[in-house]
């Protein structure tokens, strides 16, 4: 009897049916149109329907996927607004709360009714789908498993969104505001995290914003996760996550409802203690948004400061207007003054780095492993890496060698001591990401903006690092290949266009070549590493169980051993372009715009360009070929275009540094 009176009152039930029953019917119709009817429409009009996108996945979310998603994020919100409308209107709020029903009972009954409206139509549709499965031939899409998954997923998302709306209903006294706040709540955790991290990044040098934000945050957006349902079904964790949050919403909403004052109907914020929270919350978020906008678009501190001030002011005024429900809030500026002072203190605390964040460098003994790279990309744990990716890419950036750890810590210290003002949005910069796994299980991550030359004109620790055996071992997959029996063949092909290619298939030759290449690589200095001078690509074709696998390497101009080996077999000239293949070359000063864009736009007209000279002498061509580089960095002050005998219309462009241009040519160039 007690339970009955607690949970069910006929009068309230009838009133709910009358006021939101239409949502139930409309929702059921929408679902029927979106899925079962859609299946019937497609299967009855097309013979090849099984090849259509909708039928290729093992999920029912591909049918009218956009519409299904819209339903999940609108129907429960609409419903929550209508069911708790009585709270937000003064007259009805007074009336309902004068009735002999406890708030808890009212709440339970309304919530249960609402759950019925978002759950029962889904169940009905599921039943119809089950019936449909017996005479539509689409076993992939229509079976007990997919239907159950569809029903369970839709219900969980609906319940989650509905409870979010109910939760918000208790905190506000305006229905429109309830709707708006519900959507804000759904994006809030992700949004605030992005805003916060992006802004911390402006103040704390070395803050590894990409590491923290990389793919992590969008997981907190229900819209994103639900949008992925067309290809990734909910995992147990997803179900549990949505469900637990929904329960939390339910409990907190009940708790809050029992403490809510009836007279707060039509107030934007229903609890007085929450008014400052709302006011300063809006102001703070607006400030961060403004800072981020100008930080990303303009980049300078001045613009960012402008963004902070203007946006926080707008946020403050708007929040005041909402709270006071009037335009006239100009008299209430004192709160903003308090905010400015608090923010100034916060900014100073961060700026003066009270925790020593910026200068913190781990002690070498405590480091187990280090990651150093120009991006945090391979630290991401969002997507499991394939074995191949793990081996070829991720491993390259990790160091365990003690000497290398010392070098990296040195490098880190040098970066800290270096130029601070590598501000956002300078056009050319690169990143240096340091990631330490410490022996105590903790991690230390820092990311810095460094000049482009950081990697090309390195300081000593970086050069030593790159010359270290560990680095080369990780960087060159070729070094990791011990057993040459795994190699099917080795293909060497020119990387200067045209067709120059040899394939080594003989097992002994493969073995010889492989060992020489390993030696060449191990002897390579850092300068040679980055000079971009190479003759050809080397591709190992491996015999592997599943499918053919490849290893790649460059035939660099500095690799003397393999060059000699190839020359001895007269293979070199078949694998690369030589002076004999070139009709002539044209050398000219590299103009500013070429440096800017990193390429030559003049194309075939380059040979007619003023200030260039044409070289046809074989010896000179040989020298040029030896010295020119494919890297377009600042060192390459001269541009060289090779015109091939067999294709004069498409020259191949490379750069050459001033010191490497043969004197005779340099002299001629200067005379022009």
């Amino acid at each position: 009897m007690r339970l009955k009176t607690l949970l069910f009152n006929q009068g309230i039930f009838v009133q709910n049916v009358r006021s939101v029953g239409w949502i139930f019917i409309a929702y059921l119709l929408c679902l029927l149109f979106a899925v079962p009817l859609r299946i019937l429409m497609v299967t009855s009009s097309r013979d090849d329907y099984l090849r259509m996108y909708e039928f290729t996945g093992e999920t029912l979310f591909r049918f009218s996927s956009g519409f299904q998603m819209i339903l999940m994020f609108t129907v429960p919100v609409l419903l929550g607004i209508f069911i708790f409308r009585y709270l937000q209107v003064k007259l009805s709020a007074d009336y309902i709360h004068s009735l002999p029903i406890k708030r808890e009972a009212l709440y339970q009954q309304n919530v249960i009714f609402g759950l019925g409206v978002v759950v029962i139509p889904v169940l009905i549709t599921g039943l119809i789908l089950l019936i449909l499965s017996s005479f539509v031939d689409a076993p992939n899409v229509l079976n007990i498993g997919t239907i159950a998954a569809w029903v369970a997923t839709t219900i969980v998302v609906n319940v989650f969104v509905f409870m979010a709306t109910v939760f918000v209903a208790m905190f506000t006294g305006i229905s429109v505001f309830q709707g708006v706040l519900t959507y804000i709540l759904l994006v809030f955790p992700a949004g605030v995290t992005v805003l916060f991290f992006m802004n911390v990044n402006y103040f704390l040098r070395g803050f590894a914003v990409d590491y923290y934000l990389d793919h992590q945050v969008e997981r907190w957006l229900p819209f994103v996760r639900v949008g992925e349902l067309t290809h990734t079904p909910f995992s147990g964790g997803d179900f549990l996550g949505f469900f637990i949050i929904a329960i939390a919403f339910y409990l907190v909403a009940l708790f809050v409802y029992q403490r809510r004052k009836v007279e707060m109907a039509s107030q934007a914020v229903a609890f007085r203690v929450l008014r400052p929270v709302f006011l300063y919350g809006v102001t703070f978020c607006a400030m961060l948004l403004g800072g981020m906008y100008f930080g990303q678009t303009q980049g300078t501190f001045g613009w960012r400061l402008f963004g902070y001030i203007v946006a926080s002011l707008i946020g403050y005024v708007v929040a005041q207007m909402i709270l006071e429900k009037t335009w006239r809030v100009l008299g209430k500026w004192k709160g903003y003054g308090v905010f400015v002072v608090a923010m100034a203190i916060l900014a100073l605390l961060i700026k003066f780095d009270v925790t020593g964040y910026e200068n913190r460098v781990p002690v070498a003994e405590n480091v187990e492993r280090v990651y150093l790279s120009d991006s945090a990309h391979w630290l991401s744990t969002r997507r499991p890496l394939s074995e191949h990716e793990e081996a070829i890419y991720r491993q390259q950036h990790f160091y365990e060698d003690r000497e290398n750890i010392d070098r990296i810590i040195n490098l880190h210290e040098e970066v800290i001591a270096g130029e601070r003002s590598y501000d956002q949005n300078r056009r050319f910069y690169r990143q240096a990401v340091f990631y330490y796994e410490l022996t105590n299980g903790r991690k230390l991550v820092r990311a810095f903006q460094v000049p482009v030359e950081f990697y090309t004109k390195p300081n000593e620790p970086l050069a030593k690092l790159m010359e270290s055996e560990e680095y080369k071992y990780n960087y060159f997959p070729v070094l990791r290949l011990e057993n040459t029996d795994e190699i099917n063949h080795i293909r060497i092909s020119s990387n200067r266009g045209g067709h120059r290619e040899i394939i080594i298939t003989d097992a002994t030759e493969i073995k010889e070549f492989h060992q020489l290449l390993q030696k060449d690589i191990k002897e390579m200095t850092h300068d040679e590493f980055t000079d971009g001078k190479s003759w050809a690509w080397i591709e190992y074709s491996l015999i592997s169980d599943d499918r053919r696998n490849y290893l790649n390497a460059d035939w660099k101009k500095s690799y003397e051993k393999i060059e000699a080996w190839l020359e001895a077999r007269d293979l070199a000239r078949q694998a690369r372009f030589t002076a004999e293949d070139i009709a002539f070359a044209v050398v000219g000063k590299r103009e500013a715009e070429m440096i800017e864009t990193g390429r030559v736009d003049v194309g075939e007209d380059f040979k007619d360009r003023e200030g260039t000279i044409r070289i046809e002498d074989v010896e000179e061509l040989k020298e040029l070929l030896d010295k020119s580089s494919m890297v377009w960095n600042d060192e390459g002050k001269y541009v060289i275009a090779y015109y091939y005998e067999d294709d004069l219309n498409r020259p191949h462009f490379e750069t050459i540094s001033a010191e490497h241009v043969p004197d005779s040519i340099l002299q001629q160039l200067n005379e022009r």
Partner: protein
Amino acid sequence: MIQVHNVKKEFEDIEAVKGLNLHIKKGSIYGLLGSNGAGKTTLLKMIGGIYKQDAGEIFIDEKPVFENVELKGRMIVLTDSLYFFPQYTVRQMANFYKSIYPLWNEERFQELSKVFPISVNKKIHRMSKGMQRQVAFWLSLSTMPELLILDEPFDGLDAVMRQTVKNLLVQDVAEREMTILISSHNLREVEDLCDHIGILHHGEMMIEKELDDLKTDVHKIQVAFKGGVLPDGLLEEFDVLYKEERGSVHLYIVRGDEEEMSAHIDFFMPVLFDVLPLTLEEIFIYEMRDVGYAIENVIV
């Protein structure tokens, strides 16, 4: 039946009710008078268990009223603006009350349909304000409440219907010992109904008395003396709320025992001496003037 102890309620920054005390006996009709914004509606909503007081206690039958389903099932609050579910007919609304109020009396509902000339199948929101008011009384009285809280209840009722409703109310009080708490700014309306009066001003209770006591306590007298000269010491020991001169006739509103006062005035041998009946409205105005709430002489 109702005990209100030291109750406080604030809205935003305004203190609507400040440390208020109130006592209402079972079976009485208590009229709550007060200036606009005195806190009458707030007080009624707190007693009705709609608003929760910020401080103090409200007991009905010795039990706190807030969130008390048992008590609320035996009382009805009729607020100044009525609320009905949209699109409901009288019958549907009656069914709702039937499901909510344990003491709902269907016979009474049928009986009352003879009193209120309204079809049960008519949609309430299409009715006039007065008819809606009638429906509200009809439904309320059918729940057989032990306590009826009425905020400005006669707004919109015509004279005949007003009298009918008053008769119904009095009848219930007489037969079932129903208690009524009624607020009004129209004092004449409640004068003939109430037996107790409380006057509220700025959230505080100014006077709380039986109406008869109040009336015997304050008097309006007209006196005139020979030559129009007032004798010294006239009414010195009495609390004069108001005085006015109309030619040689002096008008006084005086608080005090009537017999004592008559003897006192007779002593000065007036040429004219009348004790006039005092309306509730006059009591209200003079009492309020006492606390600085006067009718402003507005020149339009």
